[in-house]
């Protein structure tokens, strides 16, 4: 499902990192651990096609990411990869449901309002449909971000420190939801974190040094 081979990245400063090969199946949930400066976020952005590796291959659901053109990669990313970040950001001018519609539009998928409604209700956000995103609490925002990552049924969900801004209660809730939704979507879930609260919850871990 997600495979990398010999991926390396050279920063503009000249320093370069060689990453260990990764192989994750669909429906598997992984933690990507490592101290800061070990290139966790860089690897996540490489896997998501936001950065291009200087060497190596990345394959997602039989598609070689490195062989796609810029525009093809944009579309592929919109349809097959869902992103969740440390702090949930949205297009501020839009409401919750409009942000999700935008995610469908940008991925080139037809707008499906009922899917958005079902998804938000599953995440207990049915009543926030027409709220602006800055009217939500931090926990709610992170749940909307999960909904947005899932709206196009992606093959891969990449989460960058999704819990480090949350308190214990929200942390557990968000991770539980993430796992639940990833399982329902049969997607590979890869969480980049240095949050110790998560280390005990996931068996499969990759450690960057």
């Amino acid at each position, binding site marked *: 499902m997600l495979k990398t081979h010999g991926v390396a990245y050279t920063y503009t400063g000249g320093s370069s990192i060689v990453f260990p090969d990764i192989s994750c199946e669909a429906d598997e949930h992984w933690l990507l651990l490592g101290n800061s400066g070990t290139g966790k*976020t860089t690897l996540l952005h490489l896997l998501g096609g936001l950065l291009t590796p200087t060497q190596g291959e990345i394959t997602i659901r039989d598609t070689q990411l490195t062989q796609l053109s810029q525009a093809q990669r944009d579309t592929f990313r919109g349809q097959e990869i869902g992103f969740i970040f440390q702090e949930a950001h*949205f297009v501020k001018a839009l409401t919750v449901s409009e942000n999700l519609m935008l995610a469908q*539009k940008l991925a080139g998928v037809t707008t499906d309002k009922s899917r958005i409604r079902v998804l938000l209700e599953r995440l207990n956000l049915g009543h926030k449909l027409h709220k602006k995103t800055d009217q939500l609490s931090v926990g709610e925002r992170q749940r909307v971000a999960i909904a947005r990552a899932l709206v196009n049924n992606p093959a891969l969900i990449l989460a960058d420190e999704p819990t480090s801004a949350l308190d214990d209660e929200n942390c557990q809730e968000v991770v539980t939801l993430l796992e639940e939704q990833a399982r329902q979507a049969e997607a590979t879930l890869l969480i980049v974190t240095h949050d110790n609260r998560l280390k005990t919850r996931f068996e499969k871990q990759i450690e960057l040094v």
Partner: protein
Amino acid sequence: MNLLALSWKNIINKPLSMVMSLILFGLGVGLISLLLLLNTQLEEKFEANLAEIDLVVGAKGSPLQLILASMYHIDAPTGNVSIEEVRPFLNPKHPLIETAIPLSLGDNHEGYRIIGTEPSFVDLYDGELAEGRMFSKVMDVVVGAGAAAEVGLTLGSSFKSSHGFVEDDNLIHDDAVPFQVVGILAPTGSVMDQLILTNTQSVWAVHDHETDDSSQEEVHDHEAEGHDHNHDHEEVLKPLVDYPDQEITSLLIKFRGRNYQALNMQRSINENTDMQAATPAIEINRLYSLIGVGAEALRWLAIIIVIVSGLSIFISLFSSLRDRRYEMALMRTMGGSQLFLFGMIVLEGVILAILGYVLGIALSHVGMELLAENLSESYRYSFTGWRFLEEEIYLLVGALGIGMIAALLPAIQASRTDIHETLSEG
């Protein structure tokens, strides 16, 4: 959630930052459009009122003033000339002159000028009677369409004229015989719509009374006398040349052909008589060039305002982008292409330009309509704000262009957002 809706929502999400550029843009567009409207309508009025008149002969003074008073009826006349002096031009067998129409100015009714002239004056403007008949007897008047409607004159109405060119109750010729409306003209779109026409003898009659018996005690007496006069006036009018001692204000002359002799006539009048002759086309061009300087300055001012407002659209887009850097990166992670972000920002600039354009056009047309009321009160000219010009389409194209150019750099900046760096900053 299409591109247009997205751009629109981005603009109305933070309306305040855009309001300033919008107002500026609207002012610039509005000023240009107002100048266009005013210029077009003024030129049309001037053209329509040229009426193929080749020469105006009147008392010495400013030639422009003579033309404005005799043809456009917006200035005071330069003075009077005696029938004796203009007698040669009134000769219907004059070899060079096709028509010579006398004008006697000096009175008004509720601000509408009363012109003592001949029925052929109406032909100058291709006018026709809408109802009634042409003036033939002393104190008969035929009223232009606009004046009739505004003052509420109908066939059979009578009124006393007022001295001068502005409405003033104290200057009414109380002791004179009243004018009788015998005809109403159909609208022509020319200055004639705003005039009240009568024969030259009527104007003389009003003023002769004034000099004959001006004492108030005799008013009673006089009215009876006036009645008698009325009967006298039913005689056939004698030609003007039979009144050598009387005066008229000016003569409108049409040549038989524009030959060398005809052109020479103007110089010969100016050099050899106590009168002056002026060519309408030349004087109006002089007027254009006088007004032109001011209009040109205003136009440049408007263009500068538009450019500054373009700059201000540029700045507000740029600064809003700084706040939305993360949004740009986010949209890229959601599959948005560089082209999509580029288009979104360009569209924001274009939407602002369209809004500014609409605001400007609304301002200029409402402004023109307000100005029209003012102008028609002071000049008896009818203007309107509810006319739209072809040039305003070009103005829209220009506005769109400025909106696009202003958005170009911010759009390029947005499309080049470094996703990795922006997201890593958080």
